[in-house]
């Protein structure tokens, strides 16, 4: 029994399958372990909270704005409270403060009406209340990410300069965002239409407000786009209703399968052996990859433009003349193939849907974006002919049976010549070969070193032996003889003793 369970490899406790809320129905991993009913409730609750939080934030911002407005116009009194900058923590508020705020707002309204009777300035009244309201609401930073907060703050700061119309713009934007968050089931095209209609409507209103000063309209529209798209990014980038994700994967795999495409096959006039050129190529690749990390369509476009400028520099350095589109497009294709930018199709779709369309049709950014679209379309359709290869060769490379780089070593194919030149000119391969040579040189040196070390070790080991042996030999050769010690007179050894006159002996003289 237990063996069978083991063979299956899966053992799930009955309780794990049930809804986590304990309602008795089965749950589903896709719904975080909840059953469909509980999940829906939970989802609704979270969404409701999100909407509420959005409102709370919006209200907060609105009040800050009013305060700013009042402080710039409140000529009469209360100069002491004006200079308070918006507290950073106030940017977003939890649901508790929302309740608090509602109360405060009611109070504000009441007090304002009452005050109106007494105060000569109806402007200063709401301002004071706003200041009070601020102190009552706890500053809790919640769901909103840092980035979103930052953008909201920037937006409010920007609108402050516009005074009254600024508030109007803000009101509309936040109403639009709330409106959009309730429309998540719409298709991407419909979402795009909503956003574009909003842009258009906003621009028209701004136009009539600023009496045709398109500078100001443009500036405001940029800010509006930045604010709205940062807030909506998560729900409208690569939405589930589209097959963008599938396309992303397809493109990614396609580019991966095309890893063998060389700069020569695309006829790109960039010489990567020139350090400056390869530096620009690297920068271009970095920029195009960076695009995915931006939220605002305009920032994404800016990445594409920077990437393109680097490519232009690279071509310019290589050819020493300004690059034309004939050079540029192949180079961009090459960069895209090398970079394999994440979520390329989604990004293109996102920009197309939510960028101000005029920016895509005309202008420099629009030109480079169009080129990127061309590059993506070309890569999708790329075939043997577009690389100047025979269909068989193309097939072989695509299926991984052959690689243009390996050709040179195998040497049995017709294209060996070109493949050889590929190896010769490809700086990466050259570098690789160089490194390999260095490595083999190093390893042979190391071997020699090891040999020397070993012989040294052997020497060291044998040295004490030999010393010992030598000592032994010597000891044998010259055995230690201890001569018997003979005691002799001091002059025993004196050879000349015989010649000496006899010692004087005492003589007795008779006398």
């Amino acid at each position, binding site marked *: 029994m237990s063996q069978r369970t083991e063979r299956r490899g899966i053992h799930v406790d009955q309780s794990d399958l049930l809804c986590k809320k304990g309602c008795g129905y089965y749950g589903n991993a896709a719904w975080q372990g909840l059953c469909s009913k509980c999940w829906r409730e939970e989802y609704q609750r979270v969404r409701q909270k999100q909407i509420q939080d959005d409102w709370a934030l919006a209200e907060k911002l609105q009040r800050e704005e009013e305060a700013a407005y009042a402080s710039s116009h409140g000529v009469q009194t209360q100069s002491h409270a004006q200079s308070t900058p918006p507290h950073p923590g106030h940017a977003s508020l939890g649901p508790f403060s929302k309740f608090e705020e509602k109360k405060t707002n009611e109070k504000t309204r009441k007090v304002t009406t009452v005050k109106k009777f007494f105060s000569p300035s109806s402007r200063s009244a709401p301002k004071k209340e706003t200041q009070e309201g601020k102190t009552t609401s706890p500053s809790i930073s919640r769901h909103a990410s840092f980035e979103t907060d930052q953008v909201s703050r920037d937006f409010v700061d920007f609108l402050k300069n516009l005074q009254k119309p600024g508030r109007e713009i803000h009101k509309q934007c936040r109403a639009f965002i709330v409106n959009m968050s309730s429309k998540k089931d719409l298709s991407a095209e419909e979402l795009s239409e909503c956003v574009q209609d909003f842009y258009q409507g906003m621009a028209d209103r701004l136009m009539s407000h600023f009496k045709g000063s398109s500078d100001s309209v443009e500036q405001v529209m*940029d800010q509006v786009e930045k604010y709205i798209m940062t807030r909506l990014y998560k729900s409208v980038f690569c939405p589930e209703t589209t097959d963008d994700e599938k396309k992303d994967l397809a493109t990614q795999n396609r580019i991966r399968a095309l890893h063998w495409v060389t700069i020569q096959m695309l006829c790109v006039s960039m010489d990567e052996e020139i350090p400056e050129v390869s530096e620009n190529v690297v920068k271009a690749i970095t920029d195009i990859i960076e695009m995915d990390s931006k939220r605002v369509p305009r920032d994404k476009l800016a990445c594409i433009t920077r990437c393109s400028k680097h490519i232009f520099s690279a071509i310019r350095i290589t050819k020493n003349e300004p690059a034309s589109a004939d050079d540029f497009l192949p180079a961009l294709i090459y960069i895209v193939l090398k970079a394999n930018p994440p979520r390329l199709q989604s990004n293109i779709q996102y920009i197309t849907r939510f960028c101000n369309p*005029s920016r895509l049709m005309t202008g420099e950014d629009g030109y480079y974006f169009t080129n990127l679209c061309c590059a993506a379309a*070309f890569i999708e359709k790329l075939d043997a002919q577009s690389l100047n290869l025979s269909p068989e060769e193309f097939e072989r490379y695509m299926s991984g049976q052959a690689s243009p780089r390996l050709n040179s070593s195998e040497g049995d194919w017709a294209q060996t010549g070109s493949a050889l030149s590929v190896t010769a000119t490809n700086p990466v391969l050259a570098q690789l070969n160089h490194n390999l040579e260095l490595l083999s040189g190093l390893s042979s040196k190391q071997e020699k070193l090891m040999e020397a070390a070993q012989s040294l070790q052997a020497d060291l080991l044998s040295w004490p032996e030999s010393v010992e042996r030598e000592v032994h030999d010597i000891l044998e050769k010259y055995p230690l003889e201890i001569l018997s010690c003979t005691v002799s007179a001091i002059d025993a050894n004196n050879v000349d003793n015989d010649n000496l006159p006899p010692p004087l002996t005492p003589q007795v003289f008779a006398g």
Partner: protein
Amino acid sequence: MGENLPRVPGGAQLHSDTLHGPVRTLRVKMVILGSSGVGKSSLALRFVRDEFKNPSPTVGCAYLTRVVHLSDVTLRFEIWDTAGQEKYHSVTPLYYRGAHAALVVYDISKRETFVRAQVWLKELEKQYIPGSTVMCLVGNKGDLDQERQISVQEGQALASDRSLFFTETSVLSGDQISELLLGIAHRVYECIGGQQGGLSEWKETPLIDLHHRDTFTPFASCCKVGP
């Protein structure tokens, strides 16, 4: 090179002053099509070369701008160069989406470029919305008269068949370049400038804000031209 630009009967003149008068500045997107090697980018460079204030010193000549002053309006041409290699033919429609003017260029000394030009024209006609794009056929390399393979009449006939603007130019000598640009400017203004929202206004924002410089007024925008 430094030749004085001719006065044109229309009373307009190309000149290089950068002062903004009371006249409006409208944006015109002009696409240059043609096989590679017919001199598209050189033509584009020619268009902008004699302009005094060249916004970007030529790192690339794929995207260039040129301001043309007409009597009552200023047109800011945004010149889009396209890749002419045949293998990119399938993706080029992306370029001329929303273009106000399209120049189809061929080399008078190379028959195949003329054939290709006809393909471009056919392609353009598919996308063509009457009154939205001014098309123009240009026979380039007029200085190679000895090696000419396409006669002026032939080019003219092709153009008048489709009621296009036709001219022969020489990028090398600068012959007919300013006339061509002025001709296009007049036609664009006549055909499209009158339409509501046909051309959008260009406002030069202060140069400090480099990023905003190439952005665009959002009011009279989008999708009103081109498919």
